[in-house]
């Protein structure tokens, strides 16, 4: 399951960077494996909690912990099956959505409709629609800003120097904030809100100034031109920034999607270990790490081929566009996983790419794919709900 996520989702997530030739496939694999594992470890806890206990109330399984175990197992299998089937039929189904559907399905069949925390489910389903839109708005606005202030200016390099610290500052700000807000909680470090703000802003500012100077130094010494001949100097600058945003996407992906695969396992694990359902399912950090590594190995095994295909197909992405799309997507995903809402990295990224497109920043986009995505939302839920119901009954009957 985690390996599957690695090959598909993460390859999609890195596709915008590989497509713009900002990074090579090898670099993409390395960056995403590391950032993804970090994301899962530092920031994955929230979503994992939602998956393993936010959607259904584990308290209802007090009398028979095995039920919960079987159910989570059934959910994993049916979600995996659904995703593989959908991949076969080329439907853009999200692993996230499949898992959510499957957990809901087993909740209904095992305890009843009441076991499902419907208000949580509704907020999750709403986030599926809202998150690509938010990704689109963020990515689109950033693109609009860059086009108006930098690309269209008389001296783009000078304009870049002027705005770069601010932009890089923003990237680091969101990144550091998300790490501190959630990740450090996992490491049992608690900060007050003001302490966080006090800590984050100078940190991000320092990173911003440092990165800007580093990039400008690379431009001055002419190193960039040899690496990216096909683009103007400005584009190659953004190619450097894209390494940052690409890691950011992989990090956000780790925070969100790894949790999806780990969530049910975490629930199973706690049942096996304690032979009882504890209300506070604590997700061990090693489990998140294992998830991150599993995703990484999936990427190593299958991702290269997927990325090659994507890189070949997406020539329309330039570093500037890729930067905007990735920044918008990663920010949205981090906000959503902060709120404990499992969203699909791929769908948010598609939303962000379309957002840049609406600002007239993309090449030719086929919006008909959005209809397929909407269709997959409608298909995934009933399918995984029914399948996990069936598998759950089968397990109970067999054992």
């Amino acid at each position, binding site marked *: 399951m985690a390996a599957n996520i690695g090959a598909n989702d993460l390859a999609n997530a890195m*596709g915008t960077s590989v497509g713009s030739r900002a990074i090579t496939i090898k670099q993409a694999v390395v960056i995403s494996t590391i950032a993804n594992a970090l994301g899962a470890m530092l920031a994955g806890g929230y979503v994992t909690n939602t998956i393993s206990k936010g959607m259904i109330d584990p308290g209802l399984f007090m009398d028979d912990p095995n039920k919960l175990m079987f159910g989570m197992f059934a959910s994993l299998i049916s979600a995996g099956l659904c995703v593989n089937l959908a991949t076969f039929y080329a439907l*853009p189904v999200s692993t996230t959505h499949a898992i959510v559907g499957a957990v809901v399905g087993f909740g209904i069949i095992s305890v009843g409709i009441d076991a499902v925390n419907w208000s949580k489910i509704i907020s999750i389903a709403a986030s599926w629609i809202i998150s690509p839109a938010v990704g689109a708005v963020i990515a689109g606005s950033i693109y609009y800003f860059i086009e108006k202030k930098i690309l269209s200016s008389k001296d783009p390099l000078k304009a870049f120097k002027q705005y770069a610290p601010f932009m890089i500052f923003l990237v680091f700000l969101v990144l550091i904030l998300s790490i501190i807000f959630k990740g450090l909680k996992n490491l049992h470090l608690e900060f007050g809100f003001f302490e966080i703000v006090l800590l984050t802003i100078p940190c991000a500012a320092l990173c911003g100034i440092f990165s800007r100077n580093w990039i400008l130094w690379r431009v001055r010494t002419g190193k960039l031109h040899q690496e990216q001949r096909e683009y*103007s100097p400005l584009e190659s600058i953004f190619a450097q920034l894209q390494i940052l945003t690409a890691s950011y996407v992989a990090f956000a992906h780790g925070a969100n999607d790894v949790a999806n695969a780990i969530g049910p396992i975490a629930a199973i694990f706690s049942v096996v270990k304690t032979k009882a359902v504890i209300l506070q399912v604590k997700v061990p950090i090693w489990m998140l790490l294992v998830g991150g590594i599993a995703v990484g190995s999936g990427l190593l095994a299958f991702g290269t081929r*997927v990325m090659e*295909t*994507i890189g070949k197909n997406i020539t*329309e992405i330039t570093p500037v566009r890729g930067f905007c799309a990735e920044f918008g997507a990663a920010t949205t995903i981090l906000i959503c996983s902060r709120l404990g809402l499992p969203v699909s990295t791929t769908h948010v990224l598609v939303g962000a790419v379309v957002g840049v497109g609406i600002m007239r920043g993309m090449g*030719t986009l*086929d919006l008909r794919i959005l209809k397929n995505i909407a269709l997959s939302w409608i298909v995934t839920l009933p399918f995984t709900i029914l399948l996990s119901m069936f598998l759950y009954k089968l397990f109970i009957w067999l054992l």
Partner: protein
Amino acid sequence: MRLLLSSLFYRSPFENLQKHADKVKECAQIFKEAATCYTKKQWEKFEDLTDYVAKLESEADAIKRNIRNHLPRGILMPVDKFQFFDYLREQDKVMDEVEEALYWLSYRPEGLPDEVIDDFIDLVDSVVPAIEKLPQLVTMANGFFRTKSEEQRTKMKSLIHDIHQYEKEADLLERELKGKAFSAIKDAKVVFHTVEVVGIVGNIADHAQNASDRMRAMIAR
């Protein structure tokens, strides 16, 4: 799911637009050669070249149809789709008019009267460079929509300005030639033929200019 991101990207119509523009340029060069053959009364070669232009025109038509048929609704482009089609139409009309001009020449194997031959060659010489700039314009546009760089936009604007200059020149020559046809040629049939041919050659430049104006609108800020 695995190719979700790449299935979001649709093949850019600029690729085919470039092919179409290249055909138009080739057509313009053949047209120049054919017009020279006509004035030198190399009849056979002229006919061969005319046939070749007709062939090019039908190939370009196929490309044009391909572009139009493969831009379904729900495709998001960096430019307004209708502006894009407007440009394509004008670029295609350039070719239609080139073909039409050659047909009109072929209607009178006797050739143009000596009084207007030099001016006619001048006219052709001022029209052809305007057409030859079109593929370059398309290449630059493709680059511009990728980078949105102001530098590229300025270069395009100056190229469009060049096309306007050629058209202006062609316009003057066209007026002069038409006047000369009426004053110097006695035979009404010949006058009619000359005026018609000159008018059509003038139209070629007009359409090249229209195309460049559409391009100007596409890159407007």
